[in-house]
């Protein structure tokens, strides 16, 4: 069951820093990489090429954990356990361009083709933002 984000989490997820995502590799080890994200209507959205390791992992095992952490004040963080509920092509790179404006305040400079956007539903939130310690 998806959980609703608290007002503090709603605010925190509007801040601009990458999400650190953890996915399960086939050999049972974990891959962690930083990616651009946005939170909209309670879901998290990320974007990538279909050749990204994490996308291959998610197709096999849709569980994904996001660590949202303020790189300047690293005690401000939230861990979101979630799962990929949907993915879709990003025709014309509209979504990656939107993310580029969120992070860089300019049009996306990379290739706009062959991209996909992924919707992640939060199942559990822990960490310091909601007051856990």
């Amino acid at each position, binding site marked *: 069951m998806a959980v609703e984000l608290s007002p503090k989490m709603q605010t925190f997820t509007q801040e601009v*820093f*990458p999400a*650190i995502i*953890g*996915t*399960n590799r086939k*050999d*049972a*080890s*974990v*891959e*962690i*990489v*930083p990616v651009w994200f946005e939170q909209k209507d309670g879901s998290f959205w990320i974007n990538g090429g279909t050749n990204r390791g994490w996308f291959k992992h998610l197709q096999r*095992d849709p*569980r*994904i*954990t*996001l*660590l949202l*952490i303020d*790189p*300047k004040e*690293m005690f401000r*963080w939230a*861990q979101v*356990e979630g799962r990929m509920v949907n993915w879709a092509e990003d025709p014309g790179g509209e979504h990656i361009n939107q993310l580029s404006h969120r992070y860089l305040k300019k049009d996306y400079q990379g290739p706009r083709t062959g991209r996909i956007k992924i919707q992640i539903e939060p199942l559990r939130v822990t960490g310091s933002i909601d007051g856990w310690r």
Partner: protein
Amino acid sequence: MAGVRAAAALTPAVRTLAALPILVVIATKRDDGSVQLNPVWFELKDGFVWLNSNTNRTWPKNLQRDRELTMLLIDPKVPDRYAQIRGRLVSLIPDPKHEFIDRLSRRYTGKKFRELEPNEHRVTFKIQPVTVTGQMI
């Protein structure tokens, strides 16, 4: 995990980053196979990554079970620069006099660690870097 048992040497770029008082994000696996991510204090010394924890927390239990983890260091000035380090636990060292956690605490806060709580046991993890990937390898 066959074929990745050899130790990896860390590049100067990674060592420079690791010398900053930033947190390392560690990934371990829960009993159900889901990924747990935690930002934690660490020190890179003698080619090993050293962590310390209260034995009651979940990630130390996960790490003791699997004896491997993945770590991520991010450049605080340029978040797109990062190093992903896969590591394996080579030893677990009890820290009964909390010397190591005091040392870590000084690295991050300039002060000794807080007083331990009743029944709080600290333990130090010595991690061997196995592979390094990312934008600053």
